[in-house]
């Protein structure tokens, strides 16, 4: 059985404000609600 494609997928999200790292390589997947 093929796994369903997540509705939203993010990989390696990083965000810095100045020298401060707020997000460091965040990954997630959101599936369709049932």
């Amino acid at each position, binding site marked *: 059985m093929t796994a369903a*494609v*997540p*509705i*939203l*997928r*993010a*990989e*390696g*999200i*990083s*965000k*810095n404000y100045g020298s401060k790292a*707020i*997000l460091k*390589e*965040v990954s*997630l997947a*959101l599936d369709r*609600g049932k």
Partner: protein
Amino acid sequence: MKVLIGPSGAGKSTLLQCLNLLVMPDAGRIWLEGREVDRSRRKGLHGYRRQVGIIFLVGDLLPFRGVARAGALLLAPDSEKRARLWDVRKEVSLRIKGKNPVYIPEDVVVPVAGIAEFVGRIPEFERRFEIAIHAFGHAGDGNIHLNLTARSESDRPRVEAAIGELLRLVLAMGGTISGEHGIGAVKREVFHPDHDHHFRGLEPRNS
């Protein structure tokens, strides 16, 4: 349903804003329905934000009572989901109105890049004027619905004073106070054509 929990400053709001591309991540990739989002194309971003919306909640909206600030990322990739989202959006205003003897809705637009800053400053106005402000809107085009409320008619002057200050902030940020509507009698005191670059373009002397 997925829930994001973390201490203040952990990056919860930043993550939501990065997923919506309201704030551009420094690194990373995003796929919607299996298709990678090209964030270099400005035109495509508008369509993306229509499908991946953020609702910022400020104040004591019922489901989040006691939470100073919260945000929700809502996905509406099809017409059925979008219709449900609109139903929720209408219900939010009715709930706020029903709970508060003083209820004044306002509609403003700030530059998309300034939404996070503007929404982040709303609690400062709540403290200063001792009122509650519920804000939500369309992140894709910078339109923010401000619902200013108070518990008693005697608080109304403070609500009106807060509106004036908020509208001035919107103009200072390069936004427009007409939102989806007009200026009308209520905003006349704050409005001046020289302060609103959108309106200035319509002035015959500038054409």
